[in-house]
């Protein structure tokens, strides 16, 4: 069946060096793209540089984009080039070039290159996860990657040292409580008061203790580079460190939690340490009459069986932290 009509005519001129052509175009395109990404996209890439974890996420995203660009260009160029040079636009099919057996060298080098990229990314990602203490992600009740000064146990988290401006590196603990469909915040270092607004000081390491009262929510202050699921009965810890920059940020719910999921948003503010301290102490005093009626500060809250009449935190609830396991 391999008659003359179907075999391609002998090429009149020398076959161009296709691979070299693709390689050169690829090299130029990759270099341009990576330069553009590093110098022009990186400084503006989400989620910004408001905190250490946000900056870390931004850096990771940039590195991954710079790794993705060559891969994308390689495949696109290869497909595009093949569509132009190795196509047949006639109506009669022609057979492509024949080869006896699959090249082992090509297969082995492909596997080697992809494995190298993958393991490189793994090492990079692991370093970027562990070195900045969990990269702002929720680490569960007993975080193993902690910033300096962070309490190592649930008990220590329940009884934090007081926080004052300038007491670096003292840690500020903020408990984030999700419920349908509202975020509230409790401040163990300020008498366990509960607020609906969120202020954070500059240049401070912050420990978010995220929990929920009903269904799964996810606390996502986007510009802080933090995200932690709020699970009922679980204390999910996430760390970040604010920089010297003051700014406001939006926090949202990132896990579908019912009809007003999209409305669980609010605006927080990173303010100077003095301003924060002023705000916190004023609030503490203002809220003191209400704080007395709250259940004692705890890492998780369980609606009591005895509270069926509508009271979520009757005094029957024990103030000790619930053992959450991991």
């Amino acid at each position, binding site marked *: *069946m*391999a008659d003359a009509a179907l*075999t391609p005519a002998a090429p009149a001129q020398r076959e161009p060096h*296709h691979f070299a052509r693709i390689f050169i175009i690829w090299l130029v395109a990759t270099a341009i793209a990576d330069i553009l990404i590093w110098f022009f996209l990186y400084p503006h*890439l*989400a*989620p910004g540089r408001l905190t250490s974890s946000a900056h870390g996420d931004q850096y*990771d995203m940039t590195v*991954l984009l710079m790794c993705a660009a060559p891969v*994308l260009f390689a*495949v*696109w160029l290869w*497909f595009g080039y*093949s569509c132009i040079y*190795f196509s*047949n*636009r006639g109506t*009669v*099919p022609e*057979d*492509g*070039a*024949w080869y*006896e057996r*699959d090249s082992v060298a090509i*297969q082995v080098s*492909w*596997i080697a290159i992809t*494995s190298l990229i*993958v393991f490189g990314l*793994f090492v990079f*990602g692991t370093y*970027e996860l*562990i070195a*900045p203490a969990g*990269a702002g*992600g929720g680490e*569960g009740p007993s*975080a*193993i990657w902690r910033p300096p000064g962070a309490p190592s146990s649930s008990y220590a988290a329940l009884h934090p040292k007081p926080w004052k401006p300038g007491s670096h590196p003292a840690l500020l603990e903020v408990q984030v409580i999700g419920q349908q469909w509202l975020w509230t915040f409790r401040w163990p270092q300020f008498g366990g008061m509960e607020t609906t607004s969120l202020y954070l000081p500059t240049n401070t390491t912050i420990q978010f203790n995220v929990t929920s009262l009903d269904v*799964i929510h*996810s606390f*996502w202050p*986007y510009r802080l*580079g933090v*995200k932690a*699921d709020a*699970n*009922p*009965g*679980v204390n*999910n810890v996430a760390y970040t460190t604010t920089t010297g920059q003051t700014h406001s940020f*939006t926090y949202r719910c990132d*896990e*579908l*939690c019912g*009809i007003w*999921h*999209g409305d669980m948003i609010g605006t927080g503010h990173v303010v100077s340490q003095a301003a924060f301290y002023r705000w916190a102490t004023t609030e503490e005093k203002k809220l003191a009459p209400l704080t007395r009626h709250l259940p004692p500060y705890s890492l998780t809250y*369980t609606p009591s069986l005895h509270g069926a009449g509508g009271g979520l935190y009757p005094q029957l609830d024990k103030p000790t932290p619930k053992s959450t396991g991991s």
Partner: protein
Amino acid sequence: MAIDQELYRPPPPVTPPEGGSWRQRVIPWWPHPNILTGILLGAGGYALGHFLGNVIAGNWARFGNTNMNDVALIIGYLVATLGFLVGIGALNYPVAKIFGLDPPLAKAAPRGLSRYFAYTPDHKVVGWQYLIGMLIYFFTGGMFALAIRTELLFPRYHSHIFNPETYLTIVGIHGTMMMMMMTSVIVGPFGNYFVPLMIGAKRMAYPRLEALSFWLTPPAYIILLSTMLVGGFPTGWTGYAPLANEAVQGMDGYEVAFALMALSLIITSVNMIATIVDFRAPGMRWTRLPMFVWGALTTSVLTALAPPVLFAGLYFMGMDRTVGTALFVDAHGGSSYLWENVFWFFGHPEVYILALPGFAIAAELLPVFTRRRLFGYNVSAAGMIGVCFMSWFVWQHHLFVSGINADMRPLFMLTTEVISIPTGFIYLVAMATLWKGKLRFEVPSLFVLAFYLNFLIGGVSGVFLSDVPVDVTVHGSFFVQAHFHYTIMGGLIFAFFGAIYYWIPKMTGYEMNKTLGWIHFWVMFIAFQLTFIPLFIVGELGMPRRYFEYAPKWATLNQTASAGAYAIAISMIIFVINLVYSMVWARKRSVENPWFSRGLEWQTATPPPPDNFERIPLVLSHPYDYGNPIEDIPVADLRGVPTPAVLAASAAGVSGGSDEIDDPPGPGAGPGDRGGEQ
């Protein structure tokens, strides 16, 4: 292998005795199993089940809005499904066997249009049923997608088209329809239709299970849609647990429908695995198995093992909602992590259940259109097996910020990134097969090229998501949504349409209109990019998924995506017009083998005869040996069971040596052998 099939003979047409058989004399026509009796018994079954549920748990009615209780709904759905299956005749054969009677299905299989509405063991009819069913499910899910994009045209404080409850139900039904009803979108239609043809078999291993696997899907579809009548469900397709426990009664429909689909998937996969392992024609070695069959096999391994886990989870959820267990309720000793783990232990293999058939179609079609041997056959199969295997070890990357097993995150980051190595094999094969080929731009090959380009973006963005620090930013955002639409819609659905354009001429004997096909492709391809590239950006900028209202600064990107979604809908309309025009109106006869394929399915008559092959063919060579200048061997000898001498020659890998197979075995055997058209 061949012997088993030779034992199977289609039953001879029964000539009824004078005055008809006793059954025909005693029973009028309408109680014979058909779709109308099915619907009738289904409706009756629902009423019965609902009544029983109220008897059992009438005093447990939990919600005022529907005045129903969960027990009544769940039992109603289950009895309705059972009634439907009884009505359509699914139980005739097993029940008759139990009582030692003649199986009623031994009658001659129905002919004509009515067989497409019947419970039939004919794998080609089931393939058609699946194809039409899947298209209906796909278009229904697509309508819900349009509703989502319409609601998201405007940010906050402008006009709302739906209220938040309806919106979340729409989101949930879109997701569930696409992820669950569409799971067998390729293995269902093309697997059932073409796997026997590709491996040289006359039928599937378990024809009645095959019919059952399809006829479980219409009840699931109806039940899923009926959730809208009882308040919908607010959880999306993932059904996260404490929320599912407190949801209104639409949640029950989600559970039952999803469980029925899980059952259907398990049945399909058992049948598929048995067929591929046992029913291969002589000479169809594992090293000659078409790539599509490898894809069907690896997918079936996943669908045999993953849905049982889901089934267990749905059972837990049903117990929580009906009899008052508290498996997912923290306050009573359960855990919200339980559902997350069970669901994603099913859910991540599920994602590859949706990816592997796309790989398979692409690898199957590419050599046909490049007219070049498939590079790295072993690597291609190994890629699919590797993905199939690795997909079991990655599920916790959905829980990177959930607070569970935080110290295991590097491990799951590694496994998730490692899975891109076998996926990379698929790209190596494609790139090397394109190289120095003679690519022809037919409609199916365009869809296959689009598959590779879209899936590339989906896969690379998946590596971003596997990286924990980046995931902290993009987890649960529209970035994720764009990512998996690139893999599933851009990958699987493009491959699905490629397969339709490729195989419809074989299934019907009529050509699809090429111009309309081109328009369909280009509108769909461009609209798809227009829809989902803005969603990558909007997700990276911080917009979470499943939001009903959003910040006005994201309006332009969302409106671009919505415009793209409408354009995708237009491309689908063009496809339907093409399908109806080509198959009903124009009816242009297709040539025997329009793509000059070496695939075994193209060697038999078009459309395939009831028994596929007159005799079980003898497979002589590799399906992808295009343009072999050294020894040009036809892919199979269709003249049946060969003499021992020929068999020995084939087994030794020497072919063409025997007189028996010197002449071409039939029309359309090789690239040059193409009668008729030019």
